[in-house]
């Protein structure tokens, strides 16, 4: 297909359709309403169904049902809406259901605001809900990458029988960029038929029961162990990242993800012209986090700078990535304000000049 100029939200919706998702359940919230809006007219064209549920809680439980019947299914929401879905997402994880959840993050806490933010890093990567589970978290930095990752998310969800989350800030939802969909796209994993799905019992196989309740502790312990094995595989096989700039000789290495990384890349190019060498590691999977890549690039750089649209949630993972405790510099904008290339340039120059204050940990 030819390149088309698409809003991020529309591209995410179309990517779901291209990936064979024919069911969408959701509840409106800014700044992601264009995703359900797009799918409400697009899904009927492919024989699919769009449902505006009565709440986020209802939406995620509709996903549970549809995924349990073996269908590819998606919902999208924004920060407070994702919080409301938390319980259901945990149930999906417990019942080993492949669902795709898109979070177009807005500034918080509480109702917060509707402008771009990365305030849900902890929520997505560490504390999505109760019960000792993990979800793959994919973070696109462009509209094309959002379209690609949403399609990958369905394959990964099916392969691991696990929820997959795609997180973008408001810019990813609202911005327009050229997008291309490939008609000959193949699944990125070998996907066996969903014999586990609850599609009606004809006495030709064991009953397929979709359940997350295990009252026998020994049975639940085994379930937890099996889930953990799956998470270990994800950590081994699914880490994604990209690197940029002077990787072997950087004065400063930046760690940033999503659209913030693009702002940083503009800064890196400008700094290069001033003779300042900067490298960047961009996590594409926030979980599993690219610990080794960050460790390696950081080991060759003098200083480390984390740039985020939160008060420094990713710093914790960057610290875990390092061999030894090292000071980390940090720059952020909050509340829906955006980082500019000029701010990053000033920060890097301040680090070089020794006037930037480091983030200290006891």
């Amino acid at each position: 297909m030819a390149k088309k100029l698409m809003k991020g939200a529309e591209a995410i919706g179309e990517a779901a359709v291209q990936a064979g998702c024919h069911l969408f359940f959701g509840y409106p919230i800014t700044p992601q309403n264009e995703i359900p809006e797009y799918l409400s007219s697009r899904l009927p064209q492919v024989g699919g169904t769009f449902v505006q549920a009565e709440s986020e809680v209802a939406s995620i439980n509709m996903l549970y049902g549809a995924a349990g019947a073996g269908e590819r299914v998606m919902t999208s929401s924004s920060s407070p809406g994702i919080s409301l879905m938390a319980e259901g997402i945990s149930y999906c994880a417990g019942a080993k259901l492949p669902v795709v959840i898109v979070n177009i993050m807005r500034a918080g806490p509480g109702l917060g605001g509707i402008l771009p933010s990365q305030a849900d890093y902890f929520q997505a990567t560490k504390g999505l809900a109760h019960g000792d589970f993990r979800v793959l978290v994919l973070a696109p930095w462009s509209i094309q990458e959002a379209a690609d990752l949403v399609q990958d998310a369905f394959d990964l969800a099916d392969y691991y029988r696990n929820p997959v989350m795609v997180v973008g800030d408001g810019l990813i939802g609202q911005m327009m960029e050229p997008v291309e969909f490939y008609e000959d796209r193949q699944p990125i994993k070998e996907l066996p038929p969903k014999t586990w799905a609850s599609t009606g019992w004809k006495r030709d196989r064991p009953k397929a029961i979709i359940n997350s309740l295990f009252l026998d502790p020994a049975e639940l312990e085994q379930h937890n162990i099996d889930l953990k094995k799956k998470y270990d595989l994800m950590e081994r096989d699914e880490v994604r990242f990209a690197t940029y700039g002077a990787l072997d000789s950087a004065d400063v290495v930046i760690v940033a993800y999503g659209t913030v990384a693009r702002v940083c890349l503009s800064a890196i190019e400008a700094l290069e012209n001033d003779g300042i060498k900067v490298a960047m590691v961009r996590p594409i999977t926030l979980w599993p986090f690219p610990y080794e890549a960050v460790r390696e690039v950081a080991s060759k750089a003098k200083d480390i700078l984390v740039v985020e649209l939160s008060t420094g949630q990713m710093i914790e993972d960057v610290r875990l990535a390092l061999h030894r405790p090292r000071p980390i510099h940090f720059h952020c904008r909050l509340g829906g304000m955006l980082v500019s290339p000029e701010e990053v340039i000033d920060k890097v120059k301040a680090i070089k000049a020794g006037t930037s204050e480091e983030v200290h940990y006891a």
Partner: protein
Amino acid sequence: MQNDVIMAGFGGQGILLIGKMLAYAGMHEGKEVSWLPSYGPEMRGGTCNCTVVISDNPVGSPVIQSPGAVLAMNLPSLEKFESDVRPGGFLLINTSLIERKAERDDVEIVEIPANTIAQDLGNARGANMVALGAYVGATGAVSLEQIEAVVRQTFAAKPSVIDVNLEALHKGYDLGREHAANSSEETAS
């Protein structure tokens, strides 16, 4: 090579539309483009703006603090963005709705009565097209042929408005070209 522009005006003036048209034209020329709207709790008649980047290389930051050009279609937009234009950049002022002069003396100022021109052409809603034409004429960010093609495509469902919009685009384009020619003469002398 990168052209970046912030277009700003009242909601309803068709600002976001001309931004999209410019981005489409850039894409059709094989360039990398991004179109970023301001969004927020705003209403018709409130202010709105969008940032368009057209580049030979993948677009880095879609957020531009110091744009190479600003199209100010009303006074609040001029107030908000005048100081942001890069030195040597381009500032279009819609004198139909803005009475004051520009304060900057280190940027190219193009004053165009976009609404008056549109009205004279019998197309009161075409002020945005005049401004778009002037921007393209003055900067050469995309070719006239390409932006014409996008106008035809955009209004394909309403063929009756294609010609009036092309007319407004051309009028603006000529004014932009004229300005560019004059300013390069000044530089030469």
